[in-house]
Structure formats: C-alpha cells, structure tokens
C-alpha cells in the first residue's frame, strides 16, 4: 500500500471509519497530561462517574506553572499552587503516573516523553498543549488538543478526528555555518505564514533534515503549530533508533527487533501524493529572527525591520504597523541594531542538552553584556543533571547567567519568570505574541546560537558577529572528563 507517513500512521489507528461525514475514531497510544489543561477534564470525568480508561497509556508532569527557583519550598503563587496540587490529587485518584516538581523525571512534557523512551515512531501522541507536535520528530502522529478532548481521551483512549491534508516540506542542501534547525523552521513559517499549515500535517524531509540530530528535529516539529499545522513529522531512521535504544521505555530484545522492523516501514512511499509541497534550499538560510508579534513575522538577521508602506497586502500591512508599534521598533532599522534586556534559553523548542551545549561552547570563557540578564532553563530535571555532569552549569554561572530548575518558565510566563512591560527579550522559545512572556513584554525568537551571541554583545547578533574565526559549535558534548556520560 502506498501512502504518506502521516496516512500510514493514521490508518494503523482507525478504530472505526466515519461514515456520512462523521470523523474517523482514532486510537491514542500515548496521552501526556500537565496541570494547566487537565483540571476541568478530570472534573468532567468525576461528574460523569467515568474512570480513566488506560492509565497505563497516560503520563502526567508538572511544567507550565512550576517555579525555577526554590523548588523545595511551597509555591508562592496561590493559584499556581492550587493547580499543581489539583493535578497531584487527580493523578492519585485516577491512578495516573505523575512526575512532580523535585522528581528527577519532572520537566516539560515534550522533553519527558522522549527522554523516557515513551515517544516512539508510529505512535499517536496527544497532549493538551499545542507543542505536542514536537513528538512528530520520531515519526509519531502527535498533536495538541483542547481540554474537552483531553477528557475524551481520558475516558475513551480515542479521539474522533476529521482527516488531515498532507504537506511535504523538503529542505535540500546543507545548512551554512551558524544556521540551525531553529532557523529552518523560522524560515518555513515566514514562507508559508502562520495560517499556511492549517488543516495539514507537515512532513519535513530532504538532505538537510536527514542530517539533523533527534533534538534538532524536535525543534522543527515543535514549531509546526506556529505555521498553523497541528502536526509535523519526520520519517524515523538510524538517528531515531540510535536515540531510542536503551532508554527506559524503549522495547528490548525481540520486541526491539520487531519494533525496528515496523518502524522501517514508516516513510512516505516514492509514489505517495501530498496535497501541497514546499521546497527550501538550506544553503540559502542564515540565522533568522522575528521582528513582529507572530512567528511568521521573521527575517534573516542581516535584514531590516520592514517598512509597512512597502507591504502590498492591506491586512499584512496593518498587522506589521501594529507589530512594529508594539515592539517599539523603527521601520527600516537594521535587526542587528536591536538591543535586548533579557536572553531566555530554554523551552520545549530549545531547552535540550544539545542546545545547552552549543550555548555553553559559545559563552565559555566570556562575560555576558553588562545590562543583559540571561536565564538558562533546562527543559527537564534530567537535562539539568546531565548539564551539571558535563560542567555546563559552571560555564553559564561564570558567564553571568542564571542557572535554573526545569520547566516552561519564561516561554509563557505562567510562573514568576516574566518580562516587565516594555522589556525586550531574545528568546529560544516558540511564540512572540503580544504579552506572551509578560504583559507588555517584547519577544524576538532566535536560535540558541543567536541567543548566545546576543547575550555577549547585547544586541541581536549571530555567531559570526563574534569574529572568533572558529566554526560554529554544535550540540555534541564538550570535550572533557564528563563528556562520555549517557545523554538524557
């Protein structure tokens, strides 16, 4: 049978085909739960007297609200504390496994699934969080859902879903020096727009994608939602299998062999037909940054802030005017001239060990710009442990950065990690919406390498701007005694 990767995974999970316009009923292999979008879903179950159908396919973590300082003390914010306590109570009552603050497996839900080996090729993965698309990097069909759907999955382990269309995003060529997977996805979103992926599952493929590590692939799939797509996928390959092997929940022995044999069938066939196709040449890319208030408002770092009068489309022109005003920028101003107050390194987009390593390699032996605060927030407690085992924490502290506990943190500012009104950040996260990182805060989305260079110079900068003459660092371990530790 020929088909796209997304269609193969879809077809393998159809419990019941919809007729007369009704959606298919799809089985869900893995349901990830966090404190913000679940309380009303558990309450719904309780009111209806329904159990969680498959607690053994469900996993809860605390991430959105959790503080990144003083995690051993009671959470100061009463409403945050209530929400966390509600999740703990619900997990206990319904028999759901939970990794709470202070537990070594606590962290952002989209890091915890992969690091435990629960996220595997060919699965259907859902979570009440739009960045669930992250798990598509393994060749899983993974997408965010609302609270009513969370309740639906808890009660039935299925979801009624109307079919998606498929879009191939082919990235040929090789990334130039200093450009990363973050720059690929920012360029894709700038090209197709924040609505360009609506109704589609995106499949990323091509030479530049194949060359990426698992973590870099996760960054790309993570931001599929910012192009309006609910899911992004990458066909599994040796890189995927290598990442999974030996993780706590990866199959073992004969099961591993059976799984790999199946996983190797998970790719779009040569004659598969996509509903849409976009082609990019990675060689044309350079570090990308956003200038506006949606992730589609991005440009290469060498460009200038757009001049609204030069934008033909009336809606886009108005949106650009509004964004430039909110961001406190001047039309035509070089992006490189923008001074920032805060650099945030973290989130489910770019808070993994490879991201922290590449930042550490850039900032090692240097000092941050005087008037910039730098927050480094690992995506999970295990990532924090790993970074400390490799000595990265000392590099960050010597640099003048703050080294925090794991969580979503300043990506969305539900905990105390927020921008003040008018404050400007360079952020490795995923959304630059108005007020996303704190009321009145101004966000520029960047890659970890741009974040590191910006923290040093104080203005939006690329690695090349540092003039080291050395190649841009990658996410491989720093050389040294701790470098051979198992990565998380």
């Amino acid at each position, binding site marked *: 049978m020929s088909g796209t990767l997304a269609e193969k995974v879809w077809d393998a999970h159809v*419990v019941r085909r*919809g007729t*007369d*316009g*009704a959606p298919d*009923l799809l*089985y869900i292999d*893995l349901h990830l739960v966090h404190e*913000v*979008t679940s309380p*009303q879903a558990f*309450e719904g179950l309780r009111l209806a007297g329904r159990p969680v*159908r498959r607690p053994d396919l*469900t996993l809860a973590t605390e991430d*959105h609200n959790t503080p*990144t300082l*003083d*995690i*051993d003390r009671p959470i100061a*914010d009463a409403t945050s504390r209530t*929400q966390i306590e*509600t999740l703990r109570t619900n997990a206990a009552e319904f028999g759901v*496994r939970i990794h709470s603050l202070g537990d*070594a*497996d*606590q962290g952002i839900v989209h890091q915890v699934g992969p690091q*435990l*080996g629960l996220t595997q090729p060919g*699965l259907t993965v859902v979570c*009440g*969080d*739009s960045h669930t698309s992250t798990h598509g990097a393994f060749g899983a069909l993974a997408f965010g859902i*609302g609270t009513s*759907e969370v309740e*639906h999955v808890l009660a*039935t*382990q299925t979801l009624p879903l109307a079919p998606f269309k498929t879009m191939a995003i082919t990235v040929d060529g090789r990334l130039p020096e200093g450009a990363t997977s973050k720059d690929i996805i920012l360029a894709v979103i700038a090209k197709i727009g924040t*609505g360009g992926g*609506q*109704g589609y599952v995106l499949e990323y493929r091509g030479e530049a994608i194949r060359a990426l590590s698992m973590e870099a692939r996760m960054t790309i799939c993570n931001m599929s939602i910012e192009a309006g797509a*609910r899911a992004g996928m990458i066909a599994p390959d040796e890189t995927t299998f290598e990442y999974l092997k030996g993780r*706590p*929940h*990866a199959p073992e022995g004969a099961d591993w062999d*059976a*799984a790999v044999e199946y996983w190797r069938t998970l790719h779009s066939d040569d004659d598969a037909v996509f509903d849409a196709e976009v082609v990019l040449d990675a060689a044309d890319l350079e570090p990308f940054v956003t200038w506006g208030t*949606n992730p589609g408002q991005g440009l290469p770092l060498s460009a200038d802030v757009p001049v609204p009068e030069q934008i033909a489309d009336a*809606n886009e022109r*108005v949106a650009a005017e*509004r964004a430039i005003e909110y961001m406190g920028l001047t039309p035509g101003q070089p992006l490189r001239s923008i001074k920032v107050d805060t650099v945030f390194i973290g989130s489910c987009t770019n808070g993994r060990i490879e991201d922290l390593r590449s930042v550490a390699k850039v900032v090692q032996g240097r000092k941050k710009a005087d*008037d910039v605060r730098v927050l480094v927030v690992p995506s999970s407690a295990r990532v*924090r442990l790993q970074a400390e085992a490799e000595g990265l924490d000392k590099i960050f502290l010597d640099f003048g950065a*703050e080294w925090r506990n794991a969580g979503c943190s300043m990506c*969305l*500012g*539900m905990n105390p990690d927020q921008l003040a009104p008018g*404050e400007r950040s360079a952020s490795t996260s995923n*959304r630059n919406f108005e*007020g*996303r990182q704190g009321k009145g805060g101004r966000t520029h989305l960047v890659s970890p390498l741009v974040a590191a260079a910006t923290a040093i110079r104080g203005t939006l900068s690329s690695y090349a701007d540092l003039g080291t003459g050395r190649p841009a660092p990658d996410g491989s371990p720093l050389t040294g005694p701790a470098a051979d530790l198992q990565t998380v």
Partner: protein
Amino acid sequence: MEKFTQHTGVGVPLRRSNVDTDQIIPAVYLKRVTRTGFEDALFAAWRGDPEFVLNQDAYRSGSVLVAGPDFGTGSSREHAVWALKDYGFKVVVSARFADIFRGNSGKQGLLAAQVAQEDIELIWKILETRPGTEVTVDLVARTVQCDDVVVPFHVDDYTRWRLMEGLDDIGLTLQHVDEISAFEERRESWRPATLPAKHLPPVEIKAARPVEVAIGRRPA
C-alpha cells in the same frame, strides 16, 4: 450541550488578523481549575484600552464576534473558548480559524462560522457605520445576516449536526466501546506503556536559588 439552530445578537467588529489565543486569554488567567468564570479574562490586555471595541457601549453586549483571518492561532488552551462563551459570545465569524480553536469551539457549543474575507469586510462596514446592529446566524441555512447583507458560511457537516442536536462527544464515542476493546486486543505488545513505570535511578534535584545578577534595562 445546548442545541444551536439560530442566534441573533449584537455584532462586534474586531478588525485584527491573527488573533492568537494568548490575546483571547493571557496565560496568567489559565491557573483556575474551574470551567466557568473567565469573562473578565477575555482580551484582557486590550480591555485596558478605552478605544477597544468591547469598551464601547454599543458593542458591550455583543454576542457575535466578527474577526479578521486566522482567528484562534497558537496555544491549544480551551480557556479561549470558555472566555468567549462566558463573556456572552455565541458565534465567532472569521475567514480562517486555527484548527485546534475550531475543534475546541465545536466541543463547547460556540459556533465558528467561516465566511469569505470580502463578506466580512461588508459586515464590518455595517457594524462600524451603525454600531449595535444585530447579526443573525442561521445554522440550518448556514447564513450570516447583517442588515441587508446575507452571506453563506462554512462549518463542517459533523460539527453542524452535533451543534444542532446538542450531542456530547464522549457519549457518542462510548456507543462504540466494543470496537475500542477489539482494537486494543489487536495492538502490538511492544508498544510502550507508562505503567509499570521505568526510569533512570532517582537522583536528588538541587533547588536553584535566587542570585544577585545585573537586571536588564527595565523601563521606569
């Protein structure tokens, strides 16, 4: 869920594209554990501006929101739908909706009516020229009527049926519980399960403490 066939109410023109769910309800309001009481959080950042459309008397009691394209992008928070409903909105009209927002709306009985942008421009003009004009949205006929303008809207057949019948999704699915059980029988045994839990050895996580660092240039 209440049955929905037709609704008439004051139309509110929201001339903005890409209204993301962080604008509909900022994250600080997501900490509640209830499903109601979010009306104060709707468009919280914009409500501080006296010029904002919902702060004008003629639109204050609006129940049909007519917005620019790409409404409801971003976060999956269903709180966005709850906030719109709690404020009193029954219908949102836009040329394009984000997928998750559209799905959440359907589950909660908020109609996401997709109307061509040129038709929205016509409706905007009427609502802005004569503030307080009522809009009638007919789910049976799939039309939006504003004054003498009658335009069609799109909503998928299944969502339309469920809204008109006021049906609960979970109840519908549980009618097929035998098929779900049969599927579970066929599932490969090597597919992962979260229980029994497996993980690397537990390790104590040290708490980070506040440190004295130079704070960024915070505007006075």
